[in-house]
């Protein structure tokens, strides 16, 4: 779903003639980053033109809100701008998303907030609901990124507000991140799929996990993957639902300092290791069968034989009883 390249012309515009684009997915402009750009513009001027379209005598930004904000703050009297034709609402939104998807410093949340609107406009202008592949092509986001955005979009409003407040802070001072919510939501989806009874207290669970993350009980966002593994152990390892539920309830209790890692370790870690080892053993068994069947025993080198001998000794010890 490509966006046509309309004819453009370069103009020098007064910053006061320009209005920000309400569809800009970048909701956050951090002080430190903005000041670096402003100092650079104060020294060297605006080197790359911003992109705008004309609308009722004014110009609306398509690309370059940070440069425009700096130009305004520095009271520059003109800013180079590429003026292009007014896009449709959907084209405008897709342009903004593509522009921001290509940049390094953007937040998932800011992109995610526009995804719903993109879907709505798709339905309105093109009369159908885009699937993940079409959304990916249209927005320039990968399918993985779209799935992550959708996880954020599915958050209850108060968590979105919490995240937005946190994103306003300089990177160094942010404790709660989009990654936290993305990892947490992914794992909670897995948990509630296996143990739907947790759906009733999902917000309490979220509160407890966020608080435990804030106070350091949960040390890393990747720990949430172990949370999911405790739940999937019901299917993958055959552990009882009650065992998994008890383990997860301990983690979800806000009044203790039990973290995910220790519960994972005491409940399912050994079984998961055992399962992984079993897969390796099965692979080895197949390999040895193949060697015997094809009579390649003499081709094994000495180092390999030595490793096998050591394995044999260990197996003897393991299987003695």
């Amino acid at each position: 779903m490509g966006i046509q390249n309309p004819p453009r012309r370069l103009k020098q515009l007064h910053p006061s003639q320009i209005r920000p684009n309400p569809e800009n997915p970048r909701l956050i402009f951090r002080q430190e980053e903005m000041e670096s750009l402003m100092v650079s513009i104060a020294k060297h001027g605006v080197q790359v033109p911003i992109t705008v379209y004309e609308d009722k005598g004014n110009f609306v930004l398509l690309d370059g809100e940070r440069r425009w904000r700096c130009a305004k703050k520095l009271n520059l009297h003109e800013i180079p701008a590429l003026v292009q034709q007014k896009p449709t609402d959907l084209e405008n939104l897709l342009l903004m998303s593509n522009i921001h998807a290509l940049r390094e410093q953007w937040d998932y949340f800011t992109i995610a907030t526009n995804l719903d609107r993109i879907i709505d406009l798709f339905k309105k202008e093109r009369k159908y609901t885009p699937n993940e592949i079409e959304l990916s092509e249209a927005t320039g986001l990968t399918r993985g990124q779209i799935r992550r955005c959708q996880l954020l979009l599915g958050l209850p409003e108060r968590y979105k507000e919490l995240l937005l407040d946190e994103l306003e802070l300089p990177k160094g001072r942010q404790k709660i991140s989009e990654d936290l919510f993305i990892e947490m939501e992914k794992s909670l989806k897995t948990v509630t799929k296996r143990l739907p009874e947790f759906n009733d207290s999902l917000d309490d669970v979220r509160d407890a996990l966020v608080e435990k993350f804030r106070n350091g009980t949960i040390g890393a966002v990747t720990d949430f993957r172990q949370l999911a593994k405790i739940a999937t152990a019901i299917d993958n390892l055959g552990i009882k639902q009650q065992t998994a539920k008890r383990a997860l309830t301990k983690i979800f209790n806000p009044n203790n300092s039990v973290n995910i890692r220790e519960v994972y370790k005491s409940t399912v870690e050994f079984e998961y290791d055992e399962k992984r080892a079993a897969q390796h053993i099965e692979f080895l068994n197949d390999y040895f069968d193949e060697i015997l069947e094809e009579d390649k025993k003499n081709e094994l080198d000495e180092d390999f034989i030595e490793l096998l001998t050591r394995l044999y000794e260990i197996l003897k010890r393991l299987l003695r009883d």
Partner: protein
Amino acid sequence: MSGGGLTTSGQFLTDAAEEYFNGLYENPSLRTSTQIDPSLGWTPSIHFKASNHLTIAAEVSETPYPAILRLRHADIANVQVPIAVYSVCPEEAYLEKKEQSNIRQLQQHGYGLLTVDGDGHVQRRFGCIPLIQHIPETEITGVIKEIPRPIKLRIRDAFQNYELNAGAGVSQLSEIVEALAISAAKGANTKGWLSVNLTLPVARILDEMFACPQLKSAAAAIGGARSYISVYRNAAHHPPRSKKAAYIKYRDCQHGFREGIRRILDFRDSMKKLGIQIRC
């Protein structure tokens, strides 16, 4: 533009600052995110006229000393309009340890600081004066550190007055120059080099000193003191009639205060070399 700040979090701070200015300056005509002067490379978040010849501006920011105020310090002082500037930041940022040196610098550079707490209450941490009038206190302290305590105290007093009222501060400094001149004339009388009536106008006394052969080596310092008094004695009078006149007055007062201290030091040194002790 989000409350006139550079970032997206400025509206809350701007609203709080506007309410504060409305209360303190009786609902002035506040302007947000508009230029003060086309030649000034800074669009403040808020500005308004506090009087016919003083503009107060505020920059809303997440940090106490935003980059734009550092960048444009000299430019703000050079606009032909006296401008006093507040920085407006969250109380949380003001309390951060890493910001303390920036806060000290902000004050030293003549800016004021308003902080806003979570409920939107504003607290003035320190005030500001027109940047064209501003002389850093550290500069005064450094220059006068070698001189005797009584003179030092009088200069400090004049400086405090200067920060409230530039003209009055400079007039007070010229009174110190006068007091030193009378004291030096008294010393020269005692030595028998002069027989000048100390109740004469100070300008006349200095003229007598200038003509005295024994004080010839101090002629430059005496002439300097004479000219300083004639220029700055009445600096507090004649209020400015326009923004530009106010700017020129503030600028001249700033130069005058610095020059006054130099005259005092020169005069005292020259007299000391001649063996005349001056008291103040």
